[in-house]
């Protein structure tokens, strides 16, 4: 019972704030609504039992990416200026496109996904298992993507400094 109530509260929060984030007139408010959406997503991870993912989502998204966003907004935006949108006719077309996509995918989900609501017991994941799965090379172990991510992060740091520095 408690789980259902928490889920529906989080669902309402995510829905309302994601729609507000793309329709708000002021860009800094929009970033704040995005922060609430990210925190609601972290709550869904916790509800599903993935505690490590919850921590990563809070630390990386709500901590790191939001700080980047807010710094970029404050650096590039004049205060009190409203954000510009496309012409009204293009907004209507975009709204119709996304509503059509929503209806199409909703139809597919409603008719094709079986009503799976049995939450079987999850194999509990300990930090030792997590580290072994991340550093192993057997089946269901992920050393190669882990190393690729580390190289990608290095390239991203170098690239960001090269692009953003003053000439």
């Amino acid at each position: 019972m408690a789980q259902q109530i928490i889920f529906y509260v989080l669902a309402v929060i995510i829905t309302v704030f994601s729609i507000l984030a793309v329709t708000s007139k002021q860009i800094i408010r929009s970033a704040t609504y995005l922060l609430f959406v990210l925190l609601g997503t972290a709550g869904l991870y916790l509800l599903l039992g993935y505690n490590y993912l919850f921590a990563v989502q809070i630390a990386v998204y709500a901590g790191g990416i939001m700080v980047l966003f807010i710094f970029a907004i404050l650096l590039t935006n004049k205060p009190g200026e409203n954000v510009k949108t496309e012409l009204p006719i293009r907004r209507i077309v975009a709204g119709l496109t996304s509503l059509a996509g929503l209806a199409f995918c909703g139809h597919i989900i409603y008719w094709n996904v079986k009503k799976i609501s049995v939450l079987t017991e999850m194999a509990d994941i300990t930090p030792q298992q997590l580290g072994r799965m991340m550093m192993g090379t057997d089946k269901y172990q992920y050393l190669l993507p882990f190393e690729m991510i580390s190289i990608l992060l290095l390239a991203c740091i170098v690239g960001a400094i090269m692009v953003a520095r003053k000439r």
Partner: protein
Amino acid sequence: MEFLTSFFSGPVPVEAYLAVSLIMFFAGVYGFLTRKSMLMILVSIELMLNAADINFVAFNRYLYPGQFEGFYFTLFTIAIAACETAVAIAIIINIYRNLTSVEVGNLDQMKE
């Protein structure tokens, strides 16, 4: 009333998670198509990436609770999203320095 009690009594079905991520994804699509500021387009992209992450985790938990493929995919997706945001914001700040504006309509001045 009976509908409400049955709605709240059973466990949460997987479609509920899919519906939440669906709404989030198409809110992102709407923002991507309507906003002019590049930062707002980036916010919309983050919304879409998060919707995909919720789908991975929900399918992993409901269909294969003993395995962790969706879990690791989401973990790596979050890392890639962090990289992508950092580079995109560096590019946006560089564009702002050259054009003093971050609107997509002005970007064709870059080639001059």
